[in-house]
């Protein structure tokens, strides 16, 4: 079962001005980070249970905490996966999803099964690829998009495909 109390307590401890403004000794700052990280785990279980109940299927939900540095083992290895996007705002938002992926081409479908435009770009200062697609998410709600690797198509083939020589 999930539990948000550890994260609540960590956030309560971090109301201290040392945590808010970074005026603690290094080992204390490290401990603040440790408490937060320890609180995330049980909270993610809580979120997974809620998502399972609302989406109607029990999934092994994965939270990639390092998307800001293009790290996510699941999206970088799986041939197909689901992306659930939760919108905490009280209004619908369109949001560009960026996920690190392997060197392949992907097909992205929206909740109604319609293929949506997607792109694969090289992440800055690295040779990692990122899959981009625009997701539309309802107010205080979530949308589930499915991503599937297009078999046989690799990114290299697409990029370095020899252009048909123009007839002279």
């Amino acid at each position: 079962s999930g539990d948000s109390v550890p994260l609540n307590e960590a956030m309560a401890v971090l109301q201290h001005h040392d945590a808010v403004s970074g005026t603690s000794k290094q080992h204390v700052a490290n401990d603040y980070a440790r408490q937060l990280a320890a609180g995330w785990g049980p909270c993610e279980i809580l979120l997974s249970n809620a998502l399972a109940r609302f989406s109607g299927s029990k999934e092994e939900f994965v939270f990639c905490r390092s998307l800001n540095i293009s790290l996510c083992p699941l999206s970088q290895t799986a041939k197909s996966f689901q992306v659930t996007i939760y919108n905490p705002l009280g209004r619908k938002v369109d949001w560009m999803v960026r996920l690190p992926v392997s060197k392949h081409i992907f097909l992205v479908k929206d909740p109604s099964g319609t293929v949506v435009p997607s792109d694969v770009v090289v992440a800055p200062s690295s040779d990692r690829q990122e899959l981009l697609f625009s997701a539309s998410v309802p107010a205080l709600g979530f949308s589930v998009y499915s991503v599937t690797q297009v078999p046989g198509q690799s990114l290299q083939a697409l990029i370095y495909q020899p252009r048909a020589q123009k007839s002279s």
Partner: protein
Amino acid sequence: SRIKPLSRIKSSPRIRPPSHILTIQNEHIWARFDSDTGLLVEIKNLDQDLLLPVRQAFYWYNASIGNSLSTQASGAYIFRPNQQEPLLVSHWAQTRLVKTALVQEVHQNFSAWCSQVVRLYPGQRHLELEWTVGPIPVGDNWGKEVISRFDTPLETKGLFFTDSNGREILERRRNYRPTWELNQTEPVAGNYYPVNSRIYITDGNVQLTVLTDRSQGGSSLRDGSVELMVHRRLLRDDERGVGEPLLEEGLGLWVRGRHLVLLDKARTAAVGHRLQAEKELLAPQVVLALGGGIPYHPK
């Protein structure tokens, strides 16, 4: 593309490279980069036909270790540069341009410890600057306090605006306090204020707003200029109680964050930055799964 350092180009003006324009744009925004230096130099709001020269670059203040005026060093509690002028991280950036149907971005590499991606998605009404700074080198025994600074020709008459927890906007006036007669002894730090979500400058007609994805220190130290502190690494304790310098162990931390830049008419700017700041603060959360799970409800 590898761009020659400015110094070499200046020394032989005749061989200036062809001034191919480096730009990115979507339906609402157009941004231009100097083709010699790779730095952002202009932003245009296409909807309102507003063009503003905006030069953005990274600088660093040399942290004070105390001087003849005061023994106060820069530290965890105290920001105190040892001189008023910050130093440029780099006069130029190595750039790479990415343009696809879903994104246009310029990757700028200023140094081994400072880079940025300037990005535009379709439909976006702000310019996204994803900065990556660190580990800050301190091998020269100088503590460094790194800022991102935007310089424009806006005549802002010493005024700028910062928010308080994303709600109230406070007017700030350089070298001035509304509640007492200020004897300004710190021309830089004495004009720094907390920025929780946004800082902006305006000449009454045009407004330049920078949204932050976390609290930072910020200021406007000359008319038309806005700066935000993104990272610090110091070598002295400031004698205010921590008992150690703001100095991560080992190599030091590198930090990545985003600044969202909005250019608007002053009278319509609020709706733009307020709605965008809400989207930034309450950003969607992404959760992944392999799919094919068993039904939650047996039937």
